[in-house]
């Protein structure tokens, strides 16, 4: 059960279910994977990659699961005590969950990218859109 507070646009930006001609089955929020995550105050020794997607970045999260950075798998080569905050790429590129799947695939191809983080308008992690994992 959800309360519609911010209007239809706010609802869809949150990736919440919709019906009708703008049905949810083509929104990127329905096609994301859940990437490995690490708290921003963790150390490299605490980080685990997603074995199903070992080349994907680790999402570094702050309070309320807000995405604050990305860590490439190479970071696991660092000494275990290295702070995640020091190694992460701050403020990675993100898209909103209500983006149409076709638009996201087109943009990823245009940008020569395999993946992009999906966050709500307030920055909370929704998932990772991975080109090879999207079958529409």
């Amino acid at each position, binding site marked *: 059960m959800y309360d519609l507070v911010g209007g239809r646009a706010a609802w869809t930006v949150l990736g919440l279910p919709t019906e009708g001609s703008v049905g949810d089955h083509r929104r990127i929020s329905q096609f994301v994977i859940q990437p490995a995550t690490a708290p921003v105050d963790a150390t490299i020794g605490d980080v685990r990659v997603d074995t199903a997607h070992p080349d994907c970045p680790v999402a570094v999260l702050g309070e309320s699961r807000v995405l604050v950075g990305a860590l490439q798998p190479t970071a696991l080569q660092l*000494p275990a005590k290295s702070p995640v905050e*020091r190694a992460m790429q701050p403020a990675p590129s993100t898209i909103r969950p209500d983006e149409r799947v076709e638009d996201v695939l087109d943009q990823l191809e245009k*940008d020569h990218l395999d993946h992009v983080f999906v966050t709500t308008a307030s920055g909370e992690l929704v998932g990772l859109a991975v080109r090879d994992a999207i079958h529409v």
Partner: protein
Amino acid sequence: MIPSGVRLGWWLSSEEHDPRDLVRHASLAEDAGFETALISDHLRPWVPSQANAAHVWTVLGAIAHVTDGMEVGIGVSAMVHRTSPIVLAHAAATACVMFEGRFFLGVGTGERLNEQAFGERWPTAGERRRRLAEGIGLIRRLCSGDTVNHRGEWTVEQLRLATLPAAPPRIFVAASGRRSAALAGEIGDGLIGVTPDGNIVDVFRSTSPSPGRVVGQLHVSLAADLDTARESAWTWWPHAVVPPSLLGELARPEEFEAVADAIGPAGIDKAVVCATGAAPVIAAIDRFVGAGFDTVYLHQVGPDQARLAAMANGELFPHFTRRP
């Protein structure tokens, strides 16, 4: 010794050092424990105060002679006006033979600084990328022993190199933007970057059928005190404050000097890690590795090269060596 989890390399700056010193620095690096080094290829220094720009292939011959196991690459050569794919393939093939498999070639779209002397028009970035892409293909064919006949951006008439390596050189492509990173992924064996930018690494990996190494250059200025470190950075590497969009576009060392002077030294320690100890250097390396780089080449700015060798041997290698 267990291999280091993070590979550290030594950057030999042709712009700053007498060629005989570069050869000594290569020995110093190998003796300090570095497994890999990169040497820059310049026709002119970035700024007049650097006062050097030796012919890099000549220096490489001497480095091949004084080193035994250290991998050495060139970072980077361009194919615009100064060097054609024929000349580069010829030189790279010979370097591969001299280094007995320890050599790799770094290429890029070049800087006007090193091309303007030929009096030709400075091509657009797109034109330079096309020349680079075609040139890489020609170098691969020539270094593989093919007889090459080609007309396009470059012309090659009935050439087969006589001195050939056992295997053609790996070719790394320098990139600071998405288009060059995509080119590196599509036709390169590795990527060379100068900033810890995870976006270009992502582009490289997503466009490469089998992504190779991703190597970065980190400028450091190590000294006994911070003021001296900053002063050395500003004396020897002032163009670090020049906006990246201008680096490829200015034609003369005096222009880089004028722009750097206009900007002033206040931001030098944002572009060069000025430090007295290892901690800031380790933090900067962490940032490169977190962005997807597997090798970080350390460029100690200025003449005090022994200080980097000592720090690497005493602190950096022990820190980054992976323990069971």
